């Protein structure tokens, strides 16, 4: 099967950040491959290593995103597509979905695979939107993938069991990072990745309708996670403490 995996460059969650005057300041130098996308790449590699096929990756981003594409190539993907932006566009999930759908509409593939969300925004919207725009059968939040009789078998984790969905190809799936442990590319893979093909196209050269790319949502401000209030410690006889805690749960916490 042929997989095209959509990947995104996101700030390293371990990089320091600050919120000042409702604006988010991040160290723009520490960018990494989105962990959910890394799982999608890993699973596509595992399946093609087992059954044959190809893995290609597509990434929208500024020039710097070439590093993220190279990471996926170093893991084992065969080819990359870099849809280049200037980096200062006010795009949201809808804009990215429009660009991806337009880019992918003439490409050949059996499975379009996405991370179920990105680490920076946690929106989880783009995959579903692309499926809608391309009119593809799709499933979200996969924790396991298999291939059977030409179908993609998607395992989804539910509250009380697992749901198995057979998707006819071509299809789209979004992947959870619970499905695997993405391989760490070795140095041989990293050195070999520079010899793999990467096709670049600028968004501005794609003849897209400007209005369709306009963001339909915007972030109005950022605020830090509120500090947790200190807990209370109760000491004394178990029965007395139990009574007191039950009272507080009832009268103060209002949870009973």
């Amino acid at each position, binding site marked *: 099967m042929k997989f095209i995996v959509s990947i995104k460059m996101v700030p390293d969650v371990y990089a320091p950040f600050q919120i000042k005057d409702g604006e988010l300041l991040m160290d723009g130098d520490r960018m990494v491959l989105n962990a959910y996308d890394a799982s999608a790449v890993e699973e596509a590699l595992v399946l093609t290593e087992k059954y044959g096929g190809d893995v290609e990756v597509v990434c929208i981003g500024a020039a710097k995103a070439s590093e993220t594409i190279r990471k996926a190539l170093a893991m084992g993907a065969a080819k990359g597509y870099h849809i280049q932006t200037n980096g200062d566009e006010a795009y949201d999930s809808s804009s990215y979905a429009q660009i991806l759908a337009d880019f992918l509409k003439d490409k050949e593939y059996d499975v379009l695979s996405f991370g179920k969300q990105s680490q920076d925004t946690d929106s989880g919207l783009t995959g579903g939107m692309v499926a809608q725009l391309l009119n593809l059968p799709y499933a979200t939040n996969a924790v396991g993938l298999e291939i059977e009789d030409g179908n993609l078998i998607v395992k989804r984790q539910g509250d009380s069991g697992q749901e198995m969905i057979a998707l006819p190809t071509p299809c789209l799936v979004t992947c959870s990072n619970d499905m695997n442990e993405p391989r760490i590319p*070795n140095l041989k893979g990293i050195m070999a*990745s520079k010899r793999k093909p990467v096709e670049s196209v600028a968004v501005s050269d794609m003849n897209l309708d400007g209005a369709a790319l306009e963001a339909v949502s915007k972030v109005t401000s950022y605020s830090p996670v509120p500090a947790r209030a200190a807990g209370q410690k109760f000491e004394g006889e178990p029965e007395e403490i139990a009574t007191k805690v039950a009272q507080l749960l009832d009268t103060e916490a209002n949870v009973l």
Partner: protein
Amino acid sequence: MAKNLFNIDDALLFESELGEEDRLIMETARDYAQSKLEPRALKGNTEEYFDQDIAREMGEMGLLGVNIPEEYGGAGASYTAYGLVAREVERVDSGYRSFMSVQSSLVMYPISIFGTEEQKHRFIPKLAAGETIGCFGLTEPDHGSDPGSMVTTALKVVGGWKLNGAKMWITNSPIADVAVVWAKAKESPSDEGVIRGFIVEKGMKGFSAPHTKYKMSLRASETGELVFDDVFVPDENAFPDIKGLKGPFMCLNSARYGIAWGTIGAAEFCYQKSRQYVLDRKQFGKPLAANQLIQTKLANMLTDITAMQMLALRLGKLKDEGRDHPSMTSLAKRNNCGRALEIARIARDMHGGNGITGDYRIIHHMMNLESVNTYEGTYDIHGLILGREITGIQSFTPKG
């Protein structure tokens, strides 16, 4: 006001100066070290244990021989990449970095530079894969900073050389399959001898490598001796051309360069753990971090680390451009080891009683860095190398 962020781990944004390939290699080394080495380090230090699977794992990741040409099984990456790998591995433990430095810079490197084509193909690919482990024998029980006075000899015999003598403080020796050994080669017993290099293999008759006991530093890696009792080494295991101290010094220079980078990782670990500790730990109702004494300690650490990063980055670029000089490496090795050791000692102090236990892993770094400051040219010897450069007067030989 500019909307730029002050990065408290990378104050002058040195990582942003790295090329794409070097950053990817750094990321790989970091992911490997944090996921596979960090969980082993406490046991390694407590039980004085080096898990030999680490050699194969590092081989699979391509972390052995980072800048050895690809045709011999190395990665063929830059000196900067090699340094970045050392930094990530030493962030976990100097012992693991020592294993890697010796394998790469002191065994694979000399074979790749001084060895015959046959030796390169026979030894380097297996060393790169971590299938065999190497060590480097230069230092002797009575000759450390003064290796030119070594007493290990290699006497010419039919078809090879007969080695006699002993080497000490040899990283990896008890587990090594291959030892690059420097000895005074003599055509006849009365010759003065000239230093030459030999590849001694495990199992050669008369060759043993006893483990060094009661080591209080670098406990997560192996250290031992090399003992040669009439060991016959065939001609095909001798380096053909290199003679004199230039050979071992070229190796040491390569390893010292890795140390200059590695110590940054150890120092960063100590600084970052100390910062978190003083923010979490409350005394007199306030975090320790609220005290001026503590804050200036952290400020000094970050300043030193930033300087260490800048030195290493610049030296790496000069090496990649072929513009380096061995004394540049002495300057960086000396400074970065000294600063890292000081940072580790202060970090230990800031952790109070908790700094004494292995759980916080600070004391491991502190103890390790005592060795790192001493080996591969002590802090003071590198000072004398620089002193000679500055004044034109050598002062290694005491005048008294």
